[in-house]
């Protein structure tokens, strides 16, 4: 028997998931730092996971969890890659700045 209670649980879980996706989208559009963008992507990811899990729970199978796990691994991999590239870029920028400062300092002394 499928109770109306399950319908309400599905609807409310999807509502919470939709709110999480929207809050993450607001964070992506309004905050421009890379750190905040990554955290906003995490919020969107949590909303999608909640929606998929509730759909799977409602249908009585584990397909929602399977799709959620696959998406989770892909998104986390992409985020970790972005984080690594970002830290490497900032290190390169810092080392370039040191080189430029090292070049300019003797000129200042000479002048």
């Amino acid at each position: 028997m499928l109770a109306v209670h399950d319908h309400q649980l599905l609807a409310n879980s999807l509502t919470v998931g939709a709110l999480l996706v929207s809050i993450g989208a607001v964070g992506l559009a309004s905050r421009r730092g890379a750190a905040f963008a990554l955290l906003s992507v995490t919020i969107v990811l949590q909303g999608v996971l909640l929606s998929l899990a509730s759909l799977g729970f409602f249908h009585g199978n584990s397909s929602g969890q399977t799709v959620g796990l696959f998406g989770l691994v892909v998104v986390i991999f992409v985020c970790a890659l972005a984080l690594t590239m970002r830290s490497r870029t900032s290190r390169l920028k810092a080392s370039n700045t040191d080189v430029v400062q090292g070049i300019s300092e003797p000129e200042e002394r000479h002048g």
Partner: protein
Amino acid sequence: MTFVRGWLSYVGRAEGVTFRWSIATNGFALAMDDMSHGLLLALTLGIGGLGLYLNLPWHSRPIVRWSGAGLIGLALYGLARRLVLSMGTDPFVVTFTGTACVVIAAALLTVTSPTVKHAAIGCVLLAVSNAVLLFQQNAAVLAAAAVVLSVGAIVLPLLLSSDTEANAKANDDKPSMHEPGLACVTGVLLAGVLIASFNRIDSSDLVSGKASETVSVTQQSGLVQNEFEVSASALWIVGLLAFVSIAGATAVSRRVES
């Protein structure tokens, strides 16, 4: 639109029989109930969106940010009341409602906090409380994986990288780099579209009338198949709308920047 849909549904049900005025009035009452339900939800979302806008970090005056926090609290109260009214007051529902409010509050904390450290704390709180919701729906493996992977692969490296705070502050301090009002309006519209699409099943139940508390087993397979088709099409439409909204907001923000 909802009224027309409900009225047409009842007229369609009256095909083959003599049209009775009571059918139209009953449809009108149910449609008005549905419409007021949607208006209340839209009002709650609007109040929450305004609170989110006022609570964003470039409003430096404390009175503005506290007003935003108050509006967010009001919207959360409205959402919790809606959840409890629709599902009852047994312990499962109370736990679900409380955890859902913590999840949304943590997401708002993550988006609106001025420093990366506080945003990361909000993100950890969000992951843990969302894991409780997933655990309630028999998704324990997904809950554990979500907590371990989100916290381990995103939040901890973010906190451990030393230059994060300076970069985030430098990016957020440029006034032309963001368009918070547009982002909040887009977010409220996106939430409304998502919730309306996801609750389409629920409103169709409301229009057709909840005569009994349960659905028989013979109707269950057809209902699940129909629901899967509705959910799949809604997900496609919602995904497209979300992509267009985010791309549009980003494009307009970049135009402001240039």
